[in-house]
């Protein structure tokens, strides 16, 4: 077995000769080493325990940033002509993305207390794309065991490095547009993703054990649906700002509104 840089869908493509004299001695050893590499997909495990319940309550709201938006990192993408063509000159990274009316995008809202039982993961995959030398979306939430499809729409080379701590970390090559991989994560955590070819590319994939989460849209709005009646603690997580939490009690069929305001910080 070897570490495969190619996508799952393109494994029938031709392989490249590796028998150059210099590498001759190292290649067999390399293949042996690659057999132990962590890049292979993890086999999904079925969760055990009583099934969790779904309900009809909803918590919705809007996340805003109080005060002046912080200074985001500015980069130039001159090291790759394709990326530079997409973003000529200096580009501000959307680390703290604030809309014109103060709405804060890319905030994860997740229930951290009050949920019990085991929830089955949806079979439907969520997609993390590499588009214009940036991840799209920047913050994505999935359930444990739910497929994550990683694709590249860019006509340049990327690598996808998932720096997971609780799950198995991996690093995959995305050498051409249309490259596609599917991976699952079995343990809850927020997994930072990065492209080491283009170090400004960052994404965060939140892996959650239940379906009670949302990520804010460009206007800062969110909605967590299907909650059973009960008391919950909800955490608002942002990649650069200190976490916020709130607690609320919901009755069946109730739609509660709760807005969250993050205090600003000097720089992202």
């Amino acid at each position, binding site marked *: 077995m070897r*570490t*495969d*840089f*190619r996508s799952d869908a393109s494994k029938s493509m031709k*392989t*490249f000769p*590796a028998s*150059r004299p*210099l*590498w001759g*001695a*190292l*290649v067999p*050893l*390399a293949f042996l*080493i*690659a057999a*132990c*590499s*962590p*890049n292979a997909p993890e086999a999904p495990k079925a969760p055990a325990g009583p099934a969790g319940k779904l309900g009809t309550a909803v918590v919705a709201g809007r996340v805003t940033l109080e005060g002046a938006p912080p200074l985001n990192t500015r980069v130039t993408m001159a*090291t*790759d*002509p*394709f*990326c530079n063509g997409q973003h000529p000159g200096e580009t501000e990274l959307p680390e703290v993305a604030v809309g014109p009316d103060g709405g804060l995008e890319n905030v994860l809202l997740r229930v951290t207390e009050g949920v019990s039982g085991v929830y089955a993961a949806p079979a439907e995959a969520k997609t993390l794309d590499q588009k214009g030398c940036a991840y799209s979306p920047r913050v994505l939430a999935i359930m444990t065991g739910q497929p994550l499809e990683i694709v590249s729409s860019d006509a*340049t*080379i990327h*690598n996808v*490095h998932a*720096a997971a701590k609780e799950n198995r*970390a*991996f*690093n*995959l*090559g995305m*050498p051409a547009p249309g490259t596609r991989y599917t991976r699952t994560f079995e343990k809850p955590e927020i997994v930072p993703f990065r492209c*080491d*070819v*283009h*170090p400004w590319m960052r994404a965060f994939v939140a892996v959650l054990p239940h379906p009670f989460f949302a990520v804010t849209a460009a206007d800062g709005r969110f909605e967590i649906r299907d909650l059973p009646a009960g008391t919950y603690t909800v955490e608002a997580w942002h990649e650069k700002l200190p976490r916020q939490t709130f607690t609320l009690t919901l009755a069946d069929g109730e739609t509660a509104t709760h807005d969250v305001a993050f205090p600003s910080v000097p720089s992202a």
Partner: protein
Amino acid sequence: MSDGDQMTPSRPVRLATRTVAISVFLLLIAGALVTSTGSGLAVPDWPLSYGKLMPPMVGGILYEHGHRMIAATVATMVGLQILVLGFRRTDRTTFRLGLAAFGAILAQAVLGGLTVLFLLPPAISSAHAGLAQIVFALTATIALRTSLFWSRFTDAAPRAAVEHGLRTRASRLALWAAGATYVQILLGAIVRHTGAGLAIPDWPLSFGKVVPTGAEWATDGVLAHFLHRTFAWAVAALVVAAALALRKLDAIPGLRRLSTLWLGLVALQVALGATSVWTGKAVWATSAHLAVGGLLWIAGVLAAVLLARAATLSPAPAAAEVGEPQEAAA
């Protein structure tokens, strides 16, 4: 092949061994740039790069694949060096050093591959950094032993009027300084590969104090970073002491110049360490810090090798000659 005083190696041998040592140094800098630019995983596979011998050299691939290409070239050069040393009948020790350098650089390639495939575990990445400096020391020693300077040194050292005690002291200090520098390089590698370069954000103080306190120690990387910056002062003191001891042996050719170079390097290295923190780990500063660290280590190794050579050529005087009591007399 002999292990005694060999003939002065020919110009092609001298040129070849010097070129190999300089190439290894350039390879160290290329490796430093990989880490400093965060490009260590820009190529996810090994030994090929995205399944090819030559991927597009964009972004971090330029550094990572460039490092691999330079490494392949330098490894080939180190291999060819064995042939040059063998065919040109250099002494046995130099030939063995050539074999050791080739073995070490092959092991280095395997460590490089392992660290990519296992996503840069700090232990493997630090071992890769540490072995790189061993390869540098081996090739630099080969270059020294095949140089014209080595021949002149071999001729002149026995005639130099040098007090035995001073030479022994300088030799011990050079060994301690070189050893401490290597330990410091390993500590630096741990700081680099655990991402602890800015764990303490100020310099020369640490969080505004001489020693971090309380919860600061619990922060990731603070212990490794503090050990590296504290041990730096011990290394600097040893290097200064060894360099000053070398200056007292100025009757032996080359040692005074080496002493001056060593003192200059240690001052530059402390300044680069501080600059790495002050600039928030600017790529040029951290790369230069690693490169000068390598030169500092090599200065210690060469000083130790030269002093060992001088001791071999001018053995310690017999007890009677220096007027020590004759315990077994009569």
